């Protein structure tokens, strides 16, 4: 077939377009003119504009595939687990809930059908943390939100899930609102509430016997964390909060939708009419808000920027608590087990010393400063002083008050 290449300006058509080839060309040109794009994967359904050239079905399969790969290749969920899903109502945790629910349903169907029924199916609970009494959020919206959460969870097909709606202040004896309000730095306040949230989730998990905590943290959320942590001087501890698995807690935290972009999750919610709660964006004067809007600008310029940030940070060394200990891999199929066992035969690292507020590992410099001061003060050191010394430099700057006044949180941590 004669070819002119893309440089040819005129609409010339090769001489031998008669016959089959010609027919195909004509059909294609008609299709292009009626602008029906086919899914690039299955080539059958219509490609959706917001799904990057895929049809709705393939798009869902693509996201679920990422979720499933994350869960299986990191042995996130074992058959005997009691899994607690942290549900904020937002689109990311909504999709996490949906996918976990689907995985559970499929496992249950297999179990029903199997003869031996030797391995049980993991159970799932859902928790919604009520924070309106701590920060300045509109409390009249809170009742609406709770009603929506209830309806979403009860609307999930069987097996039914326990829903725990917990006001955060009920879990602590101190006056949380006063405590949070006493922090001067806006970013410090937000970060402190985040740390409280994790503590609260862990307390709920412990109280109701859950042994794993699922967070709906997306790739976009992690990209935001990477930049925020960099900007706060937390370069050393940055990898700790962004891995698939985090065993610093009694109920290890797992991130099954870590590889999905927020945009993709929002699209999925819209395509499948997954009800979620619209969170109103409050004007943010904090560093976290600035990072959010910066990433939004970058995303407009290049939609895969968040993935690149994730990939860069993924090359940073994770910590020894970013993997399960060997006895957690009991239920991993034997063909996969060597992969996990290999990790264990590395040289034993000394355990990290963690900041009591944000649980980030302390750097060598922070540790040295702490130990030096502790040695200097010796037994004369007051409890509050010792506490101050044990915190990381970031919490020191943005959360702890400048003077070592007696905080109303004795014995808090």
């Amino acid at each position, binding site marked *: 077939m004669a070819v002119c290449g893309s440089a040819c300006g005129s609409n010339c058509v090769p001489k031998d377009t008669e016959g089959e080839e010609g027919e195909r060309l004509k059909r*294609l040109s008609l299709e292009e003119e009626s602008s029906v794009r086919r899914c690039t994967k299955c080539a059958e359904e219509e490609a959706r504009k917001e799904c990057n050239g895929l049809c709705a079905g393939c798009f869902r399969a693509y996201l679920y595939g990422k979720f499933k790969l994350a869960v299986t290749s990191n042995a996130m969920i074992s058959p005997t687990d009691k899994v607690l899903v942290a549900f904020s109502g937002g689109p990311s945790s909504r999709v996490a809930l949906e996918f976990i629910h689907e995985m559970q349903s499929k496992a249950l169907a297999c179990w029903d059908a199997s003869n031996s029924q030797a391995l049980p199916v993991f159970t799932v609970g859902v928790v919604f943390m009520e924070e309106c009494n701590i920060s300045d959020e509109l409390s009249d919206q809170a009742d609406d939100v709770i009603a929506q959460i209830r309806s979403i969870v009860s609307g999930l097909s069987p097996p039914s899930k326990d829903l725990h709606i917990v006001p955060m202040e009920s879990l602590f004896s101190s006056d949380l609102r006063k405590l949070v309000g006493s922090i001067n730095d806006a970013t410090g306040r937000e970060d402190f509430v985040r740390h409280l949230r994790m503590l609260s989730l862990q307390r709920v998990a412990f109280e109701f016997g859950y042994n794993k905590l699922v967070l709906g943290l997306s790739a976009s959320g992690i990209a935001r964390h990477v930049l925020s942590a*960099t900007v*706060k001087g937390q*370069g*050393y501890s940055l990898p700790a909060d962004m891995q698939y698995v985090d065993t610093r807690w009694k109920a290890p935290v797992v991130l099954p939708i870590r590889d999905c972009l927020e945009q993709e999750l929002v699209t999925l919610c819209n395509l499948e009419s997954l009800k979620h709660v619209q969170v109103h964006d409050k004007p943010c004067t904090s*560093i976290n808000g600035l990072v959010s809007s910066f990433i939004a600008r970058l995303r407009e310029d290049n939609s895969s920027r968040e993935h690149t940030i994730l990939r860069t940070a993924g090359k940073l*060394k994770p910590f020894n608590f970013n993997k399960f200990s060997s006895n957690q891999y009991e239920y991993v199929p034997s063909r996969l087990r060597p992969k996990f066992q290999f990790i264990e035969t590395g040289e034993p690292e000394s355990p990290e010393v963690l900041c009591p507020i944000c649980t980030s590992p302390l*750097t060598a410099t922070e540790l040295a400063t702490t130990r030096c001061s502790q040695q200097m003060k010796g037994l004369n050191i007051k409890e509050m002083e010792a506490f101050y010394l044990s915190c990381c430099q970031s919490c020191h700057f943005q959360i702890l008050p400048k003077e070592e006044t007696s905080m109303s949180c004795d014995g808090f941590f």
Partner: protein
Amino acid sequence: MEGVEASEKVKRTTPRLCSLCNQRKAALRRPKTLEQICRECFYNVFEDEIHRVIVENNLFKPGDRIAIGASGGKDSTVLAYVLSELNKRHNYGLDLFLLSIDEGITGYRDDSLETVKRNEIQYGLPLKIVSYKELYQWTMDEIVKAIGLKNNCTFCGVFRRQALDRGAALIQADKIVTGHNADDIAETVLLNILRGDIARLSRCTSITTGEDGPIPRCKPFKYTYEKEIVMYAYFKKLDYFSTECIYSPNAYRGFAREFIKDLERIRPRAILDIIRSGEDFRISTTTRMPEQGTCQQCGYISSQKLCKACVLLEGLNRGLPKLGIGRKKVCSGEDQVQSKRHLENKALSFHGKHGNVEWKR
């Protein structure tokens, strides 16, 4: 009652005193720490911090011949001035030279070179000028004409780095110092995160680089804020050229710069925090890092067979402006999906047996 009111009034009309010396009137607010201090104390803390950085990091030894990368801009002018001062005050025993690069940008570089020539006289430091034209037979004006305004900063940066090394070798310098400040390094850390350049990320916070090469280079202004450099130059009435390069508006660095400026407004210490993060990053041992070798064509240091300058120059001389720009052809996984989607979203094209035929809509 009256006495209290009177003394209150006096408090308000008395000018604030410098928080460091408590003697002189406060004249400015220090960008790094937001302290209200007088001019003299500002000069002292500014110069003293740089002196401590030089000493604590063992940047120089007596007898070193130092080439100061001088563009005529605020950073290099202040660098030349302060280094000259500290060299005398603390007896570093250094031989200082000004080294300037002429990229051949009409209306920008020729003006700033005039500033450097004046600096040569003002500070009494010998000047050496090296030009792109004599090194590469291309000026930036010619390069921009050939390749446009999208990737010109890449060309200029790559060529300048080599030009500085060659110029320093010509004057037999032991070290090169550049005026990269804290803002620059913070921007670079962010840029490398955004671009996925883990190799550069691991190196960009080092105060001295190229120690295993012929001429190491260091950045004494690593912890010095850009705002403070401007303030210092202004109060000391130093002669510098303050216009932005005429070809720079489209540089990607602009994103990071804007972000850092906003950040500094909320939390000034964030700039130093970014640098600290960069220093604390630990790269996973399983990550593949490029190995340092030498260019097969010119012998310059390079992690590939040919150094970037040679590749870019070849592209220019062969009329292939994209040579050496962007990703290599061999890509895997995500890149393929990306480029495939990119093709899908671009003009309609039909992949015929012998090539592409484009359909007009």
